[in-house]
């Protein structure tokens, strides 16, 4: 199906120049198996070209080229809905290609809950531009004014029904050659038939039957298998390798060493695993990590490189001095791992000086730049191709596995597939950094909040490319700064206190290579803010919902909280409840306006706390969310359910453990996550606003979970949990010291 561009001709439309040539219709599988040239110059990927996003073949099939990729969230289906709706074609006629640097526009990393909000809206506008051009062309061909034409299932008809022409006939095997028109008229949401519907995901049947090709399933002809052998300690130097230790491993091709980068390549996957296990290596000692038991002292003692003031209203510090009552609290959130079920995997092939790299990267366009820099080759000689792998929830090890595969493939001059082992993923994926926040608030004599002052301690750096492990170990060019994501988001608060100051102290170092994990910073900061807000409500004896409404001057936020009260059957009272027996129950409420700019979420958690064992059982979550226009309500619910479940796991159980040299939580026994019997029920109420912009949903509902649980535990047993994870030992200690 990889048709070569055969001709180029020009077609004058009605006032629009349609420059066209026949486009290849590609499927991922075909592409993958054909071993494409790394530098395909046959297709535009320019963000202002309609052809970068869309192609229509002569039979009316539509190909969507998306720079945003489906990380298991269902956006492939949602983006298809957007295109099918805007073009008025059947869903089944739209095929999606994602994250291929030769074919898809660079729409930015698939992160930050922006795939629909930003990427989808670029795609919608491209489709609207295409539709407009097709209608103009149809008007010309049919001799009917465009306003008298309607589109049904990819066919343009006159309203009388007398004349018709299909998109396939209009496009005639050519391309649009149109600039994306930001003013192209969009369909009226009132006429939507596909957007807003719970369309079943098109990837799911294949995933349920073993027919789906994940990254981990992908092969190219002549491919070898690689495994990495990581340093014994994070900062170890490679002192020696005894290659005779693996000489008996069948099919061993090569032990690859470059600086501190070490790997093995074998004919079979099992051979590579055996070689990696048996290889005798001497590493230097290194003990550069802080003591885990003194992590927070370490964080406080770390050099502050700068302060980011994220909000400053009135004059918080003097106001605190004048307060009738002051409250102080310190919250912290442990180091976390992404915890993907499938360890990261990639395949690299270097042919005729050109590199093709298949990976599950969130950002193949950016990875392409990193790989080119690592090998000091022009990026035009590198092609990055996305294949869906295990869910990543941020920047996990996918990009690092790609770099590993590239170095191994270069060393053996054959295509190499690398899959990390479990300990590689848990040990070497970049981590969510330790997060610490000091909060102070002042109340006047009548219980009004007059001041709020928070100070956050998080690593410096923001968004960008996380350095590649292989490049660093091998001493090849790589980024040097820290890239934790935009972790100061949601330090500022949605409440209208007269004096507010929120400051982020940006730290010059952090123990582990940081990166973003789902709702980076927003999850931790909302934990601190919304738990402390609950402390204030309790201090003045107010109902937590009523207390928030007192200080909320945002109609959509107020709507949301009122709807939450009804949905969760919230009964107004102060917290904590009267004390019960050994097993106490409680409920906690929380609220976020994501980044103070978009998706609103409110939640109520119901918990049981066993005073003796310290165990918390999260029984139920009620979540109300307003993300504007909903593309696929079932997809949105799936994301909310996932956010709640994953974050309950983070809050109750998860903490990366380490000694002075290395991560020690290297599997699911030492880094346990939530199991089926422990999961809460989740009920979701989505506020649909079809005429509003669609906002992101992949992260926001993660942000509300920690504080909802902390507040519910306070309601149950009257103690504040200010340190994630809320392990039984911490709960017991909090109860005993209360």
């Amino acid at each position: 199906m990889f048709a070569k561009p055969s001709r180029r001709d020009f077609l004058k439309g009605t006032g629009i120049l349609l420059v066209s040539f026949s486009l290849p219709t590609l499927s991922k599988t075909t592409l993958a198996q054909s071993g494409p040239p790394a530098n395909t110059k046959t297709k535009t990927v320019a963000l202002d070209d309609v052809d970068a996003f869309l192609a229509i073949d002569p039979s009316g099939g539509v190909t969507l080229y998306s720079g945003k990729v489906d990380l298991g969230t269902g956006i492939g289906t949602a983006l298809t809905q957007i295109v099918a709706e805007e073009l008025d074609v059947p869903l089944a006629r739209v095929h999606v290609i994602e994250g291929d640097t030769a074919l898809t526009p660079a729409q930015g990393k698939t992160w930050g809950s922006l795939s629909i909000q930003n990427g989808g809206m670029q795609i919608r506008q491209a489709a609207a531009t295409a539709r407009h051009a097709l209608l103009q062309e149809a008007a010309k061909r049919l001799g009917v004014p465009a306003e008298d034409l309607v589109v049904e299932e990819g066919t343009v008809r006159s309203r009388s029904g007398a004349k018709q022409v299909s998109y396939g006939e209009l496009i005639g095997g050519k391309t649009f050659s149109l600039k994306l028109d930001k003013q192209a008229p969009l369909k009226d949401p009132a006429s939507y038939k596909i957007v807003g519907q719970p369309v079943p995901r098109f990837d799911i049947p294949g995933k349920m039957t073993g027919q789906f090709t994940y990254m981990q399933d992908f092969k190219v002809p002549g491919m070898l298998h690689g495994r990495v052998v990581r340093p014994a300690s994070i900062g170890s130097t490679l002192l020696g390798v005894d290659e005779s230790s693996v000489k008996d491993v069948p099919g061993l091709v090569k032990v690859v060493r470059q600086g501190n980068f070490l790997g093995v390549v074998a004919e079979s996957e099992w051979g590579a695993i055996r070689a990696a296990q048996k290889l005798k290596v001497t590493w230097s000692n290194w003990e550069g990590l802080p003591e885990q038991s003194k992590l927070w002292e370490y964080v406080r003692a770390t050099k502050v490189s700068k302060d980011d003031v994220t909000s400053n209203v009135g004059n918080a510090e003097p106001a605190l001095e004048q307060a009738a009552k002051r409250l102080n609290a310190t919250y912290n959130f442990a180091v976390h791992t992404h915890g993907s079920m499938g360890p990261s995997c990639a395949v690299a092939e270097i042919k005729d000086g050109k590199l093709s790299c298949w990976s599950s990267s969130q950002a193949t366009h950016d990875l392409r730049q990193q790989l080119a820099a690592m090998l000091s080759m022009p990026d035009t000689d590198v092609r990055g191709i996305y294949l869906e792998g295990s869910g990543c929830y941020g920047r996990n090890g996918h990009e690092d596995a790609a770099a590993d595969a590239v170095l191994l493939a270069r060393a053996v001059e054959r295509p190499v597939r690398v899959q990390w082992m479990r300990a590689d993923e848990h040990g070497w994926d970049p981590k969510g950094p330790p997060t610490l926040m000091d909060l102070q608030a002042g109340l006047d004599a009548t219980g009004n909040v007059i001041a709020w002052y928070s100070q956050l301690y998080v690593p410096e750096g923001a968004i960008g490319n996380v350095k590649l492990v292989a490049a660093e170990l091998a001493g090849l060019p790589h980024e040097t700064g820290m890239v934790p994501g935009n972790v100061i988001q949601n330090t500022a608060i949605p409440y209208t206190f007269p004096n507010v100051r929120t400051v982020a102290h940006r730290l010059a170092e952090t123990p582990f290579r940081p990166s973003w994990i789902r709702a980076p910073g927003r999850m931790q900061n909302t934990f601190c803010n919304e738990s402390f807000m609950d402390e204030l409500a309790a201090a003045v004896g107010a109902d937590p919902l009523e207390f928030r409404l007192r200080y909320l001057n945002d109609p959509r936020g107020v709507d949301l909280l009122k709807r939450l009260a009804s949905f969760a059957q919230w009964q107004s009272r102060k917290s904590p409840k009267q004390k019960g027996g050994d097993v106490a129950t409680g409920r906690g409420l929380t609220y976020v306006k994501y980044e103070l700019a978009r998706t609103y979420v409110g939640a109520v958690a119901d918990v049981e706390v066993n005073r003796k064992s310290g165990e918390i059982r999260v029984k139920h979550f009620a979540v109300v969310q307003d993300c504007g226009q909903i593309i696929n309500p079932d997809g949105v619910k799936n994301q909310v359910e996932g956010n709640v479940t994953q974050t309950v796991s983070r809050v109750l159980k998860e903490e990366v453990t380490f000694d002075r040299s290395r991560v020690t939580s290297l599997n699911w026994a030492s880094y346990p996550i939530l199991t089926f019997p422990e999961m809460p029920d989740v009920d979701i109420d989505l506020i649909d606003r079809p005429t509003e912009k669609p906002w992101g949903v992949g992260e926001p509902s993660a942000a509300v979970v920690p504080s909802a649980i902390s507040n519910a535990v306070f309601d149950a047993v009257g103690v504040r949990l200010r340190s994630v994870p809320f392990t039984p030992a911490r709960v017991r200690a909090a109860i005993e010291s209360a």
Partner: protein
Amino acid sequence: MTVDDPDMPLLYALRDNLGLHGPRFGCGLGQCGSCTVHLDGRAVRSCVTPLSAVGKKKIVTLEGLGTPDKLHPVQKAFIEEQAAQCGYCINGMIMEAAAFLASNKRPSDDQIKQALTHNLCRCGTHLRIVRAVKRAAAGG
């Protein structure tokens, strides 16, 4: 098919020698369940099952359980409940649930959760998975 190491886990024979995609490598430690297959109808972790232990037992993978044209009731129920996000763990969920339902036709929610307690999911699709198993038990 010939292999040179009888200690090689079954998973690699299924994936690399036979080219199957259903069973997946998750941990290699028998902790997560992504690699689950049926050996004589019993759900086992193929990542820690050496080939030498397979003998003449009948192996069924996700592909053998049902096909897109002839879905197993559990697969059908998982599709109807849209019980996946990334789906990497789903092989294990379906294989474990199918083996469980073969011996417990009308399980309670708690029994389903207990049956799946050693199958891990990171996307948080648990609620849908339980609904899907219930649906399969109820005959779709």
